[in-house]
């Protein structure tokens, strides 16, 4: 509708070109029709109303853009009409954003993302992955050792929401009970899954964003979070429930810990390139690594959604430790194979 109205306005008689007394105004009046046509097309593009643009308009867009750009170049050298110059500059800028705007749709981006861009980005972060893995292992060990030496550390490390029944000195039965699924019904699980997903994603986005400060806060966050894990591991191993706990945890934990590992590595990657940009300027290095890390992070959100579903459903509904372990380690094998292999053959063929 907007375009139709615009057309009508365009048809309104332009002032007689010969009536203009100034040469630069005559120049402008001769080209004004093209400018207005380009403006109408650009406005429709900006409003994402692609269907409103006729085929001939779409074909004419690059030509019109170039005409208008050259009009601007000429007008800058021959005209002192500030209003027209400002209009042309804003029109060429808007057209430039549309002509050289993002090419892919969201769907096309997603296909490339899953088809290899993501795993390639993960592979290129191998060094940071090693660093983040080391931090996580160190955190687990530290958590274990601290609690093993003095069980009061458990209360300092583990936040209250986890420490309900699972605390040092709790009986074996209490701990075993905490590992059980909810008996019979599956109620409340969807809410739980959604909550876990949004919570975990917030934590990993934090881990990523803190990497900006040369990666140090990310490392601290990784160590702290895995220290909790270490403390809980000790608690269950101490009660003789170690393997049950690992199976319980692995259902979603393999996916979730891997996602946190990736988020941490992405954060460290940004911090590292900003501290050691190499031949490039800090700005160029930061933006290159930022885009790569953003790809990884988009995948992390996806992984955490899957982990939330596993945690909310699979863990509560499957109770046998071997079955739980099988699910968890199958997921782990799947992810590792994915990151190692996806996108390689295409690259080899191309």
């Amino acid at each position: 509708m907007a375009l139709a109205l615009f057309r009508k306005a365009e048809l309104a008689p332009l002032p007689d070109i010969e009536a203009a007394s100034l040469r630069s105004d005559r120049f402008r009046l001769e080209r004004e029709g093209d400018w207005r046509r380009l403006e109408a097309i650009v406005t429709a593009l900006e409003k994402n109303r692609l269907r409103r643009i006729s085929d001939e308009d779409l074909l004419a867009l690059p030509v019109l853009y170039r005409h208008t750009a050259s009009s601007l170049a000429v007008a800058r050298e021959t005209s002192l009409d500030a209003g027209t110059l400002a209009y042309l500059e804003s029109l060429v800028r808007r057209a430039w954003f549309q002509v050289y705007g993002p090419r892919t749709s969201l769907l096309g981006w997603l296909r490339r993302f899953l088809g290899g861009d993501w795993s390639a980005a993960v592979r290129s972060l191998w060094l940071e992955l090693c660093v983040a893995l080391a931090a996580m292992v160190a955190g687990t060990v530290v958590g274990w050792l601290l609690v093993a030496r003095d069980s009061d550390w458990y209360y300092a490390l583990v936040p209250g929401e986890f420490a309900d029944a699972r605390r040092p000195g709790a009986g074996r039965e209490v701990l075993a009970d905490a590992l059980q699924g909810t008996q019979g019904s599956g109620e409340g699980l969807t809410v739980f899954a959604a909550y876990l997903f949004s919570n975990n994603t917030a934590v990993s986005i934090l881990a990523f964003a803190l990497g900006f400060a040369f990666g140090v806060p990310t490392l601290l966050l990784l160590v702290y979070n895995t220290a909790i894990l270490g403390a809980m591991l000790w608690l269950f191993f101490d009660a003789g429930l170690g393997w049950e706990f690992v199976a319980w945890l692995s259902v979603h934990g393999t996916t979730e810990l891997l996602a946190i590992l990736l988020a941490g590595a992405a954060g460290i990657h940004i911090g590292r390139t900003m501290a050691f940009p190499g031949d490039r300027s800090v700005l160029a290095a930061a933006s290159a690594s930022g885009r790569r890390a953003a790809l990884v992070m988009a995948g992390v959100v996806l992984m955490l959604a899957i982990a939330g579903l596993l945690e909310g459903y699979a863990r509560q509904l499957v109770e046998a430790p071997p079955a739980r372990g099988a699910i968890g380690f199958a997921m782990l094998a799947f992810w590792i194979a994915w990151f190692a292999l996806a996108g390689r053959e295409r690259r080899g063929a191309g």
Partner: protein
Amino acid sequence: MTAVATALRRDMLKRHRDLVTPEGLALPLTIASRSARAGALLLDLALIFTSLLVLLIVLALVGIGVMEADMESASPAMELVLVLLILFVFLLRYGYFLFFELGPRGATPGKRALGIRVAARGGGRLTAEAVIARNLMRDVEVFIPAVFLLSGIGSSLGVTGWAAAVWLAVFVLFPCFNRDNLRAGDLVAGTWVVEAERRKLPQAMSVREEAPAAQYRFGEAELSVYGEHELQVLESVLRQDNPQALRHVLEAICRKIGWQAGDGDDRAFLEAFYAALRARLEGDMRFGKRKKDKFS
């Protein structure tokens, strides 16, 4: 008044950048001011907050008390509502900015209202990864400081509290310490925020039917007084068409060129003077002679 005007001009010059398009055309860009960006952010946050509030009120009116709901004892319908609510909040927090900045305008509603948009630094394509990166960083720059402020007000800060405050201030104040007003997310993503004004094409100046330009004859002496800057000021005065301002300018011009300000049609005189001055300056321009302002 003039001090303010010159300060504004200096600010505009400081934020001016040239972007060279693939056609080899230098396209001027203006970096968005910090105040415009802060205003856009506040608008967006207000929008997010309002939509959440409206949703909660609507739910309460329908008879669903989300706040009293218990996770364990929820009915299936209640459960669905809770799941949708959690996902909705999640999407608002992370998806809102992402969705709008990936669109063809490259701007959230708040940015659009203030006439600014996101663009790739240095004139490249704005990619999806860049938009994702800049919006993930928003978390430590906006949401965590906001939560910190809300929870910290009223209670006294310990040493860790102050350390956290300083640490967060680094992120929040980041745009104040670089030339391009980049926030941390812009730096990481390789983007910047620029002004994206939409202008209307004003009427051509020399095609009014009622302009009897022949009434006035300006000679070499009268037209050599002013330069391009004064011409464009005169243009803006003519476009605004305020009788008092017209009279004021007319008197100033007559004083300058040594004429007597008559009682005739102010506008007709100024239009004639404008046309004559522009014809002369543009004529000189074609021969490569430019006169920037009356001092040059």
